[in-house]
């Protein structure tokens, strides 16, 4: 039996291989090495939740009607009986209450959308804090960044499809944001909505964007993202024998294929569990879209919340004297919308996208980096990361200010005043504290390398001196603590050469030097072999 099965399997494989030469590819992929660490699976969460989104999304498209034609509801939901609504909303109710499993599928789809965006952000944070974006991976950082932006587009367009009050309010805000752009804003808004808001073609347009354009782009970019991962090979955490020129890990087959394949079902299972237990986006509570009502607790999904927060944070009058809305030559310039909802996200995302290049200017390093940094060994980068997260979280909290105020019995106004100051002070404070913590941890590492681990064992010498016995580190342990690079601030050539002629490109070099000083002026260097030898000598 076993022999016959083997023969059949071999025969099939051979049949396919003779016609496609796939054997070579399988061999190549199966032997591809990957380093092992749980944090390398964060991107996989995003990938798998995207697969869940595709699967559940196909189910939903079978029942959703992307139309803004008005119908009168006649279905099982008592609180909607006889209410006028668009076909989009009616079909959402239909799939939720009349299609078997429809509500579960909707909830799986929505929960995995939240998970998709959250996993992307977490994955980006891992890549950032470990320095995995350095050469040669800058371009893949940009691909990933674009995927993140596309995930926001996918999420927002999907959130708006049911044509309920909550998402309609969100679209109204987006319309306002379009209109705040000087000169082209109004045209852009008319172009997107096909006339005056809300118009009658928005839902069909969003539908095409949501089920075809954005997911198509995401699929292509995921392919590119993974191709580049294969091409660059995976990064690895520092450890015994690991360098920028090798990869220490296990082959893809069989361990990782089993782990990764199983992990898909873990992700799907947890999403299904959460979706079965917790309501998400109960559109039947919000009702069909109508421009007049806005209920308390009107917020976008978490990934757009920071824009809402920025809008809530922005004062209408600066220091109560400078108006943020101007009438110029008969046109209105709404700085109170333009700054928080267009300029601020633009700068924020621009900074995130360009960060690998900014850091490359500061280090001046042109080598390939395949060993990751421990976050403590890049104190300024880690500080910038924590400051950026703090900035973002403040915007998210301001976006939820009414929920926070109500939950903790605080004053909504005081919260907003606190965040208006906090948005400037707290990121700076977070940067400073984080950098200090990194330095502290680096000093602790130096101490460990030089003097070993405390054993708690006290011995008394013959001459009466008490001393604690320190146990030296193993070679592997020491490798992790000393293998980071000691980067000094950039040295640049002088402005004038010996004949007194001004050098071209000096200003750019000078900028890079200043940047470099911010990064590396103050640093804790790793223990050198000489220092170690001296410390060991003085111990004995």
């Amino acid at each position, binding site marked *: 039996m076993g022999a016959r099965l083997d023969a059949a399997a071999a025969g099939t494989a051979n049949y396919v291989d003779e016609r496609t030469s796939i054997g070579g590819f399988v061999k190549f992929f199966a032997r591809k090495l990957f380093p092992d*660490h749980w944090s390398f699976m964060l991107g996989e*969460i995003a990938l798998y939740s995207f697969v869940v989104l595709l699967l559940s999304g196909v189910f939903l498209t079978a029942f959703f009607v992307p139309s803004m034609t008005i119908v009168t509801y006649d279905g099982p939901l008592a609180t909607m009986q006889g209410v006028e609504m668009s076909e989009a909303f009616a079909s959402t109710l239909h799939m939720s209450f009349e299609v078997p499993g429809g509500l579960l599928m909707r909830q799986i789809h929505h929960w995995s959308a939240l998970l998709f965006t*959250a996993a992307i952000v977490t994955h980006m944070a891992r890549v950032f804090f470990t320095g995995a974006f350095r050469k040669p991976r800058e371009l893949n950082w940009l691909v990933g960044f674009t995927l993140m932006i596309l995930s926001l587009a996918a999420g927002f367009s999907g959130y708006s499809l049911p044509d309920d009050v909550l998402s309609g309010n969100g679209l109204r805000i987006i319309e306002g944001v379009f209109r705040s752009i000087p000169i082209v804003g109004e045209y852009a808004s008319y172009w997107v909505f096909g006339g005056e808001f809300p118009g009658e073609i928005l839902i069909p347009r969003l539908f095409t964007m949501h089920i075809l354009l954005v997911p198509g782009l995401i699929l292509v970019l995921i392919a590119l993202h993974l191709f580049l991962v294969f091409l660059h090979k995976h990064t690895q955490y520092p450890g015994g024998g690991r360098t920028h020129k090798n990869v220490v890990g296990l082959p893809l087959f069989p361990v990782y294929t089993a782990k990764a394949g199983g992990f898909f079902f873990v992700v799907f299972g947890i999403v299904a569990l959460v979706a079965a237990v917790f309501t998400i986006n109960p559109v039947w*509570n919000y009702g069909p879209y109508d421009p007049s009502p806005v*209920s308390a607790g009107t917020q976008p999904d978490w990934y757009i919340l920071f824009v809402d927060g920025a809008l809530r944070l922005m004062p209408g009058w600066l220091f109560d004297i400078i108006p943020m809305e101007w009438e110029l030559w008969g046109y209105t310039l709404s700085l109170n919308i333009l700054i928080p909802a267009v300029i601020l996200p633009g700068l924020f995302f621009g900074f995130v996208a360009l960060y690998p290049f900014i850091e490359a200017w500061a280090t001046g390093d042109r080598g390939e980096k395949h060993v990751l940094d421990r976050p403590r060994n890049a104190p300024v980068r880690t500080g910038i990361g924590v400051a950026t997260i703090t900035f973002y979280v403040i915007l998210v909290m301001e976006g939820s200010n009414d929920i926070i105020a109500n939950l903790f019995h605080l004053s909504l106004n005081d919260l907003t005043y606190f965040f208006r100051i906090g948005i400037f002070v707290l990121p700076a404070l977070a940067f400073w504290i984080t950098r200090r913590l990194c330095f502290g941890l680096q000093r602790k590492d130096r101490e460990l390398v030089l003097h070993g681990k405390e054993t708690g064992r006290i011995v008394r010498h013959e001459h009466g001196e008490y001393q604690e016995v320190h146990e030296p580190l193993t070679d592997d342990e020491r490798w992790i603590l000393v293998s980071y690079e000691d980067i000094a601030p950039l040295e640049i050539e002088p402005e004038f050469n010996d004949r007194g002629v001004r050098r071209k490109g000096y200003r750019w070099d000078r900028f890079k030097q200043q940047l470099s000083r911010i990064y590396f002026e103050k640093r804790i260097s790793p223990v050198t072999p000489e220092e170690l030898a001296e410390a060991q000598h003085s111990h004995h």
Partner: protein
Amino acid sequence: MNALARHRYHRAAPVVLVLLLLALVTGIAAAVSTASSADAATTTADDAAEGEKLFAANCASCHGLDATGTDGVAPSLVGVGAAAVDFQVGTGRMPMQASGPQAPAKRTQFSQEEISQLAAFVASLGAGPAIPTAEQVDPELGDAANGMELFRTNCAMCHGSVGGGGALTQGKFAPSLWETTPTHIYEAMLTGPQSMPVFNDANITPEGKRNIIAYIEAQDAGSPGGLRLGAIGPVAEGMWGWLVALGLIIASTVWIGARSS
């Protein structure tokens, strides 16, 4: 003794017993209901006097002995009506425990009889909205779909889409309506307590108010989608997405990533 024992096994005995029991139950019910209606009829006379005593002991320190209020401390109660008293005292908001942005609901400090007496006293000071009848607030008689539309246009901007509550300015808030009795919801609309505007019968008809109550009561059934996370919208959902969904999955990556050693 023998006669009774014989009759116990008579064929008609069960029927007789059931009839007797029914007579007993309806008799008691009738007695109780006539007693209470008799009470209701006589409230104004005795109870206003009792209410005045209660008022002097519990309310007058802020509202004044003549209930005309104190500037900056407490409003005049002349003309607020019995409905206002039944709401404020019946939900525990009054007497107020401490000054703050707004009086929170708390454990009721008076029995329903005492509340009625206080209401009767305040109602005697000047004409105002009366306590609604049981029929006026019966959710069974309301139309929840119409209530949904009225709720969305009139109530949801403060109380949230399904009455889960929301924040107002300066620490004030619109409370959750899920624990509030239909009578108190009706009275709140009628009298506009604290930050709430008055929805008189011209704004929202009595039928409309009953429809709103029907919509709020329909929320008692919970959400068809499962636990509703407070029904306060996407913020709670986002937080659960991060903490529960992503949290569980990251925990499993640590488990999967761990080497078996």
